[in-house]
């Protein structure tokens, strides 16, 4: 299992070397990285996902923020080097707390340290895991006719059946879902349903949708963690299972779909690891609000701004999304997955999902 980190160390050292060289030349020290905004993502035809474009952002010591960023970068890469040397790893949260001892370079929030770790990925082309940094377990769950084999803490392989070997909560997706940690064994299912809310995940499980409709249920838990997206992508590619995304009907949920199918703007540098380009949006769509006469809430000003922003998000430029987003703007309404309960607890599994699946060509009636 011992991994060779020398490539990572070389890349890390090159960051320090760049800053040092700038100072020696009496130039304002600066680092360049791809701009991580909506305006700078381009569709990569080879990889079939959205990646960063050519725009670069400079983090230079000419501004206070830039200088802090550089100083923190210096501390963070030094810390990573130490971890590699000492064969340790840390969570992102621990990294944030470690910075307490960095004086001026201390992070003021975990968001800052998480973002910097992402910046380092973008600058070096390495992955967070290469830096020995890992996220917290995020608790996303899976239920379905699937057997996974996981490498446990005591280095033994353990097979887990995601229906028979798990409780109501299902199988918890670990933060590392790479092959050395997790492999998919037997699968007997027709598709994957990735579900935004825990309530709906539990509803489908309780109604036996996984067995009745031969589905693998994955709980996204809001904006899905990298491991959840990576898990879905591997299952999709290795077991050739189509992926359907089932969320609330609001702009934020559309973004959840976007990050599953197209890649997230923040992590476009690793879209090819995380995105499942063939994933399809199942609902709830703005058209469903009308067709199913769902209970609604009024769009807030933030919702409206988010929808408008999606209208010029390069990832949402196809006919389907343009139509649905415009429809929602004209309705002025949003709805939740669980609003389907208006017609009873079984309605979603007996009527709504079968109808949608037929519509999408997944089921024949």
């Amino acid at each position, binding site marked *: 299992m011992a991994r060779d980190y020398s490539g990572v160390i070389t890349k890390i*050292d090159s960051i*320090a*070397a760049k*800053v*040092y060289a700038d*100072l*020696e030349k*009496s*130039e*304002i*020290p600066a680092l360049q990285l791809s701009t991580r905004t909506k305006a700078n993502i381009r569709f990569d035809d080879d990889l079939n996902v959205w990646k960063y474009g050519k725009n670069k952002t400079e983090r230079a*010591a*000419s*501004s*206070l923020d830039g*200088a*802090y960023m*550089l*100083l923190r970068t*210096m*501390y963070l*890469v*030094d810390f990573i*080097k130490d971890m590699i040397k000492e064969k340790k790893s840390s969570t992102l949260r621990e990294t944030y707390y470690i910075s307490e001892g960095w*004086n*001026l*370079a201390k992070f003021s929030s975990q968001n800052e340290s998480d973002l910097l770790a992402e910046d380092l990925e973008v600058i070096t082309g390495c992955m967070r895991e290469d830096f020995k940094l890992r996220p917290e377990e995020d608790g996303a769950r899976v239920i379905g006719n699937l057997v996974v084999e996981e490498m446990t803490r005591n280095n033994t392989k353990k097979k887990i059946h995601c229906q028979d070997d798990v409780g109501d909560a299902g199988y918890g997706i670990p933060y590392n879902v790479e092959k050395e940690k997790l492999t998919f064994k037997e699968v007997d299912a027709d598709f994957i349903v990735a579900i935004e809310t825990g309530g709906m995940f539990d509803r489908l499980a309780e109604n036996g949708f996984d067995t009745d409709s031969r589905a693998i249920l994955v709980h996204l838990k809001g904006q899905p963690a990298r491991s959840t997206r990576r898990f879905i992508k591997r299952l999709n590619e290795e077991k050739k299972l189509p992926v359907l995304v089932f969320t609330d009907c609001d702009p934020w949920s559309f973004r959840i779909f976007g990050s599953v199918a197209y890649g997230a703007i923040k992590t476009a540098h690793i879209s090819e690891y995380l995105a499942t380009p063939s994933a399809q949006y199942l609902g709830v769509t703005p058209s469903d609000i009308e067709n199913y006469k769902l209970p609604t809430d009024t769009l807030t000003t933030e919702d409206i701004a988010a929808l408008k922003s999606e209208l010029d998000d390069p990832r949402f430029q196809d006919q389907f999304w343009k139509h649905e987003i415009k429809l929602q703007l004209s309705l002025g309404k949003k709805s939740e997955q669980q609003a389907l309960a208006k017609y009873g607890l079984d309605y979603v599994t007996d009527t709504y999902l079968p109808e949608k699946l037929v519509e999408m060509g997944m089921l024949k009636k």
Partner: protein
Amino acid sequence: MPEAIAYELAKKQKEISVAEFFERNKHILGFGNPTRALITSVKEGVDNALDACEESGILPDIYVEVKNPTEEECIVIVEDNGPGIIKQQIPHIFARLLYGSRFHAVRQSRGQQGIGISAVVLYGQLTTGKHAKIISKIEENQPAVLVELAIDTNKNRGEIQHQEITHWDKPSGTRIEVSLNADYKRGKRFVYDYLQSTSIVNPHARIVFKEADGTEHLFERTADILPKKSEEIRPHPYGIELGTLIKMSKETKARKLASFLKNDFSSMGDRTADAVCDEAKLDRNLNPADMSREQFLFLYQAFKKVKIMAPPTECLSPIGETLIRRSLKSETQEISPEFIFTASRPASVFSGNPFQVEVGIVYGGNLPKDKPVKILRFANRIPLLYQQGDCAVTTAIASIDWRRYGLDQPSGTGIPIGPAIFLTHIASTQIPYTSESKEAIADVEEIENEIKLAFREVARKVQMHINKKVRRVKTREKFDLITKILPEIAKKSAHMLNKPVPSLEKVITRIMDVVWIEDLVEYEKVRGKQVQTKLDVNNPKGQTESGGWIAKSTIMVVNYKGKPQKFNLYALFPKNATVGEVKPKPTKVTDSYIKWSLESIDPTDKIDLFFELAGLNKGDFDENDLYVQNINPTYVIGADKWEGE
């Protein structure tokens, strides 16, 4: 022959007594309701007291007390340390309505109608039946006299009901005590506000207010100098009314129209008087006493057509920027405002009446951020408490777009919202009130314009201050950057690569790329050396200043440009200050600025400048006003471009 109807009518026509007159007009006299009655009574008493002290060159020490023996009754007591009033005059001053001095003489004064204090006495008598008690003492070595006064409302005369000799500790002064029907509960807050406001525009006065429950408030004086006495001037032809013109003609000593015009009006010389006579087609040798009403009308109309010089304006007595600032500072201590700025306009004229506008802005501190700014209005040092909405001051403020000065103002007009107090003082020989109650200034275009100009001027200062602050904060950040963060970055990268720490000087000038000017003003108390100074007319007690503050200003200039810099630096200071030590040797010192021609400063080099100011109170001068010349001003942080004097 039947009796003419006029005789019939005459039987019904009686002389209206002052009491009836008062009853009919009490709302315009400020006694419309029991709350107003309380404030008006205090106000008239305090106005009188201030006037009495100022006229005799005494720094006013005023004591106001309101007692509240029953729910409807208040006893208002106002005491001053003025010259006192001789016994014979007491009934005239306190118990006779419309008893004033000559009314054509024009001057800036608090009261304008002479209805004042006697109205309070009358109101008290009408509502409580009790007599006013006056104590007066005119000389230190004489006893005081106590008089109880009633007003004979049919004759409009004061009658002494009782008098006695009494002992009073003060060297001299007047005390009035009136019982009246008033609403203490509602009124006391207004009395407090009124006295606080009065203290702001009368920094030379010390006012003590004792509430009915015994609580005492002190509004301390912030200036030991009496305001310049306002001077009487003759009326200006542009401002005169026909009736007044005719009345003046009856009282003049002049026997010829031309000399009447020259002697009894301001701004009238031989040529102007002739031009007026020609315009009116009147003989300049006419005897004014013989002129007909029609002839006066021609004269009156001619006034408007002839170009006449503006009246003299030095007759006005403005408060002055430094004093406004000082008293605003003292009265807003609890708010701890971020800054106070003032502006004073030169005197101007409307319809032949000189006037002058002064304004001040108090900003920040504990003032509420989500409420309309508080507007304090003053006319001839009197607070205007009511009818804010109808006042020219309000209209002028509302017509300025305050959004660019960092205040909220939906739609760009109206009273702005933000943590600020706006003060306006208008000094004039004739304040154009909207009504007899004298609470709002009429929308005279000239006055409104001057108010706007004054507020724009002060708002510009606010904006400059804010801009300066923003730039300083930004540059201060860079300062942190080059002094703390950059060295750390250098150390850390060197450490990771096992190399020596590189030199940073050139990178620092590249990052900063400015000339940085930073200043600090400190005050030092100077203890009293008794110095024989010249006799100061403004210091009636004849004492020499036995101590004071020295403002010490330090200015640091650092060149963070890549090349050496050589330029001139100007430091402004208030005109009433005296310059002490200056380092290094200045090129020039005037009554308002110091100029240095600085030696060439090399990159990352620093020079220090220093000067002292005497004659200021602590806080009069908080922040240096610095200007640069012979350098691109955009290179410089902490000083603006010198635009000449």
